[in-house]
């Protein structure tokens, strides 16, 4: 599952090149790993350095420059679907992010052993590496991939906040003031006296008591220590001030 480049010109795919070496050179001269025989390309145009799963593109002071997604670059950390342009040629960088199940496995912390790392570098330098060589520095993935995983449904759906909540102060000196709850955490009240926090979560807004002898009151009922989900037009009483929670469009 190593990264690769798709070489194309005028929308015509010419070649697919796996990034298996630590250094992949691109240029007009024949000794380059990717030779592009065109006068717009410098002899040694640019190089891609690959370290395990990450690749870096560097321009080697080429005459006509190296572009990524339309921008000229000196050095660039390649991301999946980046398009590298050299003259009329395009190189699309593909580094498939692992799918949902393997993503979890992939994030498992692993030890990178310096001795193995050195060996990898030596191997890549000594001979043309096979795709798996880039993985040698890591411990083998364990076999959890095959184990039953909790259904992906357990992962909350896109954390996009469909609704925007706000607070309007009803009594006291700040009566009439409105506060949009754009942050994930908004604290209300007087520090040292009574404080509550409103948290914005993927599935709604929750109010929780933070400090003080008195607990916040919602619609006339005092809360306990647990978070309480706020509904449109709930009235909150806190440190002697009444306020209304409401959903803005």
């Amino acid at each position, binding site marked *: 599952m190593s990264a690769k480049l798709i070489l194309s010109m005028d929308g015509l795919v010419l070649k697919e090149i796996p990034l298996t070496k630590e250094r992949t050179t691109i240029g007009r001269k024949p000794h380059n790993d990717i030779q592009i025989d065109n006068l717009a390309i410098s002899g040694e145009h640019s190089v891609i350095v690959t*370290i*395990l*799963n*990450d690749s*870096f593109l560097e321009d080697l002071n080429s005459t006509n420059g190296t572009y990524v997604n339309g921008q000229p670059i000196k050095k660039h*950390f390649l*991301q999946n679907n980046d398009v590298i342009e050299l003259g009329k040629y395009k190189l699309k960088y593909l*580094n498939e*992010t692992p799918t949902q199940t393997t*993503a*979890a496995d*992939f*994030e*498992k*912390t*692993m*030890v*990178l*052993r*310096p001795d193995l790392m050195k060996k990898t570098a030596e191997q890549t330098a000594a001979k043309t590496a096979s795709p798996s060589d880039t993985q040698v*520095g*890591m*411990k083998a993935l*364990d*076999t*959890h991939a095959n*184990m*039953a*995983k*909790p259904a992906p449904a*357990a*992962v*909350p759906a896109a*954390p996009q906040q469909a609704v925007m909540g706000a607070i309007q102060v009803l009594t006291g000196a700040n009566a009439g003031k409105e506060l949009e709850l754009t*942050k*994930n*955490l908004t*604290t209300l009240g007087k*520090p040292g006296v009574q*404080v509550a*926090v409103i*948290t914005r*979560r*993927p599935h709604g807004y929750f109010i*929780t*008591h*933070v*400090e003080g002898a008195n607990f916040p009151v919602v619609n006339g009922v005092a809360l306990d220590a647990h978070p309480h989900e706020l509904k449109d037009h709930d009235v909150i009483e806190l440190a002697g001030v009444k306020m209304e929670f409401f959903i803005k469009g």
Partner: protein
Amino acid sequence: MDLSQALQMVSRSDAGMVRSHNEDAVFTNAAMGLAILADGMGGYNAGEVASGMATTLLGSELEKAFQKTAPHQVDAAGKLHSHAVLEAEIARANTAIYQAAQSQPQYAGMGTTLVMVAFYDNMMTVAHIGDSRLYRLRGEEFQAITRDHSLLQEQIDSGMITAEEARHSQNKNLVTRALGVDPTVEPEIRDYDTMPGDVYLLCSDGLNDMVEDEEIALTLQALSANLDLAATQLIQTANDSGGRDNVSVVLVRIAREYPAARSWWARLLQWFK
């Protein structure tokens, strides 16, 4: 010396939203001023065996060692007792985990990260291995105290990538040091002063990979009056953002000063200050 009046500690550990079991382990003892967090790795249940061994062994051995001799004492060679004990006990825990991994095939290759703090005499000694972190909130300023032993941190240090680019790296999970994977290990051990009001956060990468530092800082600033809630909130934020890894936090707030009890005249002097 009982530090539980000066140090407030809470800990939480959660499997997250994706993983079926929790390979993190935490240990706290506010009275002794000890906080330990480990993030285990290795097949099947081996990760939790490694992290559990690390926290249990270090917790109990440090309690014993500091009860016998206070951590602020200096030995003949001018070395702080805390440093001597930490070095010795981390080496012992390393050997224990390494040998278990060598002798039991089901534990082969297991290891763990480690971040631990010993509080004493208005200061702290921090030891860490791998990518579990210690952060400090002092006033408005929130910063990482430890520097990960990871491929990514090495790339950032060498200028190869920026901290911003690091967020998109696919090499996030590669640590360059771990407890129990080699016959010897080199922990990073450092001393720092503490101040009343400081809030310290020990966490596994399940928190700092899922939640931005600014968000963590905001949570600690807003909820430092209620550490229990702050810890719950941090775990919840990590899980709301996907919770792809186990997530563990230990929060420590310095409620007041805790100078070490020295001789009677030093105590008298302290009293007159």
